[in-house]
């Protein structure tokens, strides 16, 4: 199985002369939003760079940003032929249905599932586990213990990450996106112990996120068992080249798609 390299697009709203528009931002430890450009054109660039999937997250996730997120999903799915996972404030089945109708292949649920865990059962039985990705944002508490934070990393739920990971899979989640809040945007590498403990605890694909700064960080993450690695910051660094990053990963003995075989 090829490992996945997944650029992450994070949106906020910006007031412009003709209404609110989505803009792309980078984050550091889930805050310090730094604008980096236009969503659609960046998505096209990622496809040209052979992105295996694209993750799109609405960081605002409220009633005001919802219609804009839907439009963005539609625009992306009209122009790209790349798998798209979408999240941001999802709380009910109607929202999931609306995103799938607009062209999302998978939906990403986070806080909505913590507040109503039954949502995972309902969504996976209706649409299939394969399109339900559970996103978990974590902070390390002590050796081998991480806690789940909700509402964009702002509220400590006190729930242990490994317990929650097991529960969401039992309820029907088909994939877990695990993000280290402390490592986010730092470029100093992923939290490998966190990834490894989740990989050992559950048998669904794990996407790891938070901290990739150089190609070696991806290799490290795949080696501890991540099926995919998502990154925002890495793909926007001018000195990094995603195509070279793939070659680096392949040269380390990790199976990954290369442009040569995709022509």
């Amino acid at each position: 199985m090829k490992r996945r390299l997944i650029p992450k697009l994070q949106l906020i709203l910006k007031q412009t002369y003709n209404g609110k528009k989505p803009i792309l931002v980078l984050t550091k430890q889930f805050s310090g939003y730094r604008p980096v450009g236009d969503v659609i054109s960046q998505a096209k660039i990622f496809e040209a760079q052979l992105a295996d999937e694209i993750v799109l997250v609405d960081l605002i996730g409220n009633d005001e940003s919802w219609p804009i997120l839907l439009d963005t999903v539609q625009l992306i799915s009209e122009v790209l032929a790349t798998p798209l996972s979408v999240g941001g404030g999802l709380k009910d089945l109607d929202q999931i249905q609306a995103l799938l109708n607009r062209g999302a292949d998978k939906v990403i649920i986070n806080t909505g599932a913590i507040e109503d865990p039954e949502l995972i059962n309902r969504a996976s039985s209706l649409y299939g586990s394969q399109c339900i990705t559970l996103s978990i944002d974590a902070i390390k508490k002590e050796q081998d213990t991480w806690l789940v934070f909700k509402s964009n990393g702002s509220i400590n739920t006190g729930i242990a990450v490994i317990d929650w990971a097991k529960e969401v899979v039992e309820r029907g989640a088909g994939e877990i996106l695990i993000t280290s809040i402390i490592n986010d945007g730092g470029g100093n590498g992923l939290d490998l112990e966190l990834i490894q403990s989740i990989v050992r605890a559950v048998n669904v694909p794990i996407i790891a996120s938070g901290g990739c700064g150089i190609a070696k960080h991806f290799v490290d993450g795949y080696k501890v068992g991540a099926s995919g690695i998502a990154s925002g910051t890495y793909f926007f660094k001018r000195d990094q080249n995603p195509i070279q990053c793939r070659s680096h990963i392949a040269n380390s003995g990790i199976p990954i798609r290369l442009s040569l075989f995709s022509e």
Partner: protein
Amino acid sequence: MKHPKVLVIDAGLGNIGSVVASFERQDCQIFTYDSPDKIDSLDLISHVILPGVGSFAKGMSALRERGWDHWIKNEWRQIDRPLLGICLGMQLLASKGQEGASQGCLTSGLDQIPGVVNRLETSFNLPLPHIGWNEVIWQKENQSLIAANLPNNGDFYFVHSYVFDVYNQAHALAKTSYGSTFFTSVVSNGLCFGTQFHPEKSQRLGKRFISNFLNF
């Protein structure tokens, strides 16, 4: 075929948006109908696409509810024009399937390609669902123009937990391995085709596959 007229079946089985978009990028005309009653004349359609995600049992009941199962089995297959099932749409072409059925009894499928849909058996503790890019290996003994200009180990995008076990190996045009398990990734029986992967999400190779299908 010049200017194919493509019907994308809307059975309410998840995302048809990106399937429609991928065909819109080709030189063809697209229709989407949620019920066969809306089709004025079969002459207006040259190709049919059956997309879908979700479970086998729910998929079949959705097709039945809207009258599509009868339409595919009787009207469409009688006139023998091309059909492409994608992901769950491919699995529904089988005789029967396990997913979502009550213990011990299988759900009947569209029965266009003999076989049964079973859970993917994984080895080496590989995770399920099988999500991501994987190689499609065309079977030398079952050559088809659907594989024209496609490399033998090209990567396509998969998202699934169940697989189509064909009864007759001549219907398996391509296979893909997951761990030590090989499963059928492209099926065909005459002009009835199915792909376990998502050609509409498989970038350039997917585009080429779709254009091959439209050439039938």
